[in-house]
């Protein structure tokens, strides 16, 4: 069984106190709890502070382009279905430039886990408004306050009928670990949005803020995470400031399960050469 030791890399370069440490921690704990070897994991990330996850996690990594973790990660998974594949990135990465891929990853439903470190700010580029910045947020690019409505990630995922939707908080690593474990176990695309405070550039959406405002649906026995429309209502009512397993549809078929001809064994082990008979059949089609 792998231990935390096996994932050790050089110390992460995030600012001390950055929420992303918590996410890293929870992700590592989750795979350790699930007994997954680091060599069997790929973390595909976008660009941003959050994007450094691919380097810090200690598995195979693909630190791709800003906004492009999802298409890249989906193909990694298809190429080798035995791998546990994470896509990871920030709110700008995932809900700004990457928004289109997000919605399409949901509909495609390939069995990967998508972790967004949602700090409501562009961290790496030192503090511009992000798509999830609160309305009126003053940032370097919104000196007069933002006027766009923030992206509603959970509601969008629910609207597009995402098979697994959860939201966590890097201030609650225990719950986050559990959510990530469930997400990894879910067959199909799983989305875990994480409130991961940027201690350097966001003085509003802080640990304290979340600690005092978060509604924990996991602790609400009346909440049923299998009712999509109810989930939408609850998230809307709470102004998105909820954590917990928001929704799961355990029955939705994954892309891999549905796709005609998709092989049982990892594609990466395919034999690449065509035999004489293959050539003969194909050539015949051109005669």
């Amino acid at each position, binding site marked *: 069984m792998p231990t935390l030791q096996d994932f050790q*890399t*050089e110390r992460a370069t995030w600012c001390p106190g950055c929420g992303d440490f918590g996410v890293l921690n929870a992700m590592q704990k989750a795979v350790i709890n699930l007994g997954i070897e*680091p*060599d*069997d*994991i*790929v973390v*595909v990330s976008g*660009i941003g502070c959050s994007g*450094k996850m*691919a*380097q810090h996690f*200690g*598995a*195979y*990594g*693909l*630190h*791709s*382009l800003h906004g*492009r973790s*999802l*298409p*890249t*990660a*989906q*193909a*990694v998974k*298809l*190429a*080798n279905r*035995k*791998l546990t594949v994470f896509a990871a990135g920030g709110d700008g990465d995932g809900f700004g430039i990457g928004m*289109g*891929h997000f919605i*399409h990853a949901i509909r*495609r439903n390939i069995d990967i886990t998508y972790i967004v470190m949602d700090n409501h700010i562009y961290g790496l580029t030192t503090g511009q408004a992000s798509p999830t910045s609160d309305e009126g947020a003053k940032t370097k690019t919104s000196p007069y306050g933002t006027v766009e409505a923030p992206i509603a990630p959970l509601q969008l995922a629910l609207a597009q009928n995402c098979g697994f939707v959860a939201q966590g908080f890097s201030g609650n690593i225990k719950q986050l670990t559990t959510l990530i474990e469930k997400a990894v176990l879910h067959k199909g695309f799983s989305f875990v949005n994480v409130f991961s405070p940027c201690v350097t550039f966001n003085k509003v959406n802080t640990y304290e803020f979340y600690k005092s405002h978060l509604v924990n649906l996991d602790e609400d026995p009346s909440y049923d995470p299998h009712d999509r429309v109810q989930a939408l209502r609850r998230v809307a009512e709470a102004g998105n400031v909820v954590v917990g397993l928001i929704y799961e549809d355990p029955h939705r078929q994954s892309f891999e399960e549905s*796709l*005609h*001809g*998709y*092989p049982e*064994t*990892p*594609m*990466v082990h*395919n034999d*690449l*050469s*065509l035999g004489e008979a*293959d*050539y003969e059949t*194909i*050539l015949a089609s*051109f*005669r």
Partner: protein
Amino acid sequence: MVREFGWKVGGKQGEGIDSTGEIYAIALHRMGYYVFSYRHFMSLIKGGHTNYKIRVADRLIRHHGDDVHVLIAFDQTTIDYNWNDMVDGGVVIFDASAFTATKPSERNVHLFGVPLTDIAKEAGGPIMKNMVAIGVTAAINQFSPDDFIPVVRDKFGRKGQAVVDSNMEALRRGYAYFLEHYNVFFPAPAKPTAPAPDHLYISGNQAVAFGALAGGCRLLAAYPITPATEIMYWVLQYFPKYGGVVIQAEDEIAAVNMAIGANYAGVRAMTSTSGPGFSLMMEALGLAGMSETPLVIVDVQRSGPSTGLPTKTEQSDLNEAVFGTHGEIPRIVLTPRTVEECFLYTAEAFNLAERYQCPVIVLSDLFMGMSFHSVDQLPVSNVSIDRGKLISDEDLARLGRWEYQRYDHTVPDGISPRALPGQRNGRHVALGNEHNGVGIEVEDLETRVNQMAKRARKLLHFNHWSGVTVDGPDRASLALIGFGSTWGVLEEAREVLANEGIEVKHIHFSRVLPFPAEAFRAAMDGVEKGLVVELNSTGQLRHLIQQFAGYHERMDSCLKFNGDPISLREILTRAREVFPTGVLN
């Protein structure tokens, strides 16, 4: 002795023009002829002029030819549009049930009305007017109606014998009608005597797709775009049988990043697109270069810029293929000259991508991709799979944890072995940031320079048989120069000029990057005037040559960019202008 003829059918889009052409072409190909067909169509679905040109010969031909001997016109536009391509004494068959044709100008061309639609109705339905037309031209070319039975059976067999019969009936009636009323013939040439080893009829797009399969590609991620989508169609038919996957991505950016992801994970993957999609891939191209991830992109060029003429051909993405993306990466740009090379080069692209761990761009174009070519055989036995440097499990096991250096910059050839996710002890990060050996981003000056040098070094000793070919007399002081799909027509031009006593050699690029400077210089030895023939408006190849090899004063351009493929005549006209034939007279 007749050695070839040109045949064309034209009408409005949606009228079945394509299937008429296709049936005639396949029938003749099956008879043993060499057929080349080119489809002219427009970027709208119904209405708009379309035509299907077939050139039929007793020998291998590489383009659809300038001349039309027989034209089937379903409307007057077809006659107007193609009038000037008719040979003297040529025959235009028009659908007399639909309109009364007029000659656009006084010329010695026959206008023969045949009530195609009415005859079709008699045979069972107006939709079969194209079979009537085929019957008519079968008569003109002096085939027997029975020659068409196999094709008609193939085409309509699954709809039942009755449909086959009524189609054959329509064909026979057209045949009979013509013989009854007219008396002008273009007998087909004698069939080639030496049968081809494997007489195939295939388009450039099909050849690329087949090449990908043969080259071990098992994942195509692509977004539909004319004229590249047919690659997707072909692959969709075959990949599932070989455990492969086709993903229709949400856009081209997703497509290319998917191809990168799959390649990273060890599955040969590619994306296929055309200009607009190619432009969207520029950022990811850099990622593949920087992260040293193999990647194959096929760009089936069409007329640009921007949306341009989506259903027309051009060779104008050369600059972007060579120079696109910010910053500097190693890359390889292949420009297959023939349909056979479309097959082989696409297969090879995967070897090169893995061997040099960098992106490989295959530049085809609409003319190459959508035209169908009869060829003797495909070079299937030349296909091999070379996965380049992949580190073995054993080698990895010998290393300590985190000792494996994915980006070891000290390797002499710059190519450090890849580990694939899932392999024990091979963990590393592939990334677009500058990085150290294990793929951690670092910014120190030395690492930067070492890694830049490592990447650049990979192609310093690039070694591959693609590059430059020279046809024609070695010592000729005149040269036709081109790249990619124009090889065939340039060869014919060279032959014609040779027959006129103008000694010309033909220098052709099947790869432009790494630029085969040495081979090109050798080819230019003794050349006083090179005519660079290319389908774009600025002379991109010529400029590329200037940049990498010079010869500014020794080159002239023959450019075409109206969307149509270049004709033999256009090349000859320009060649006669540019080449100093005076000295020979």
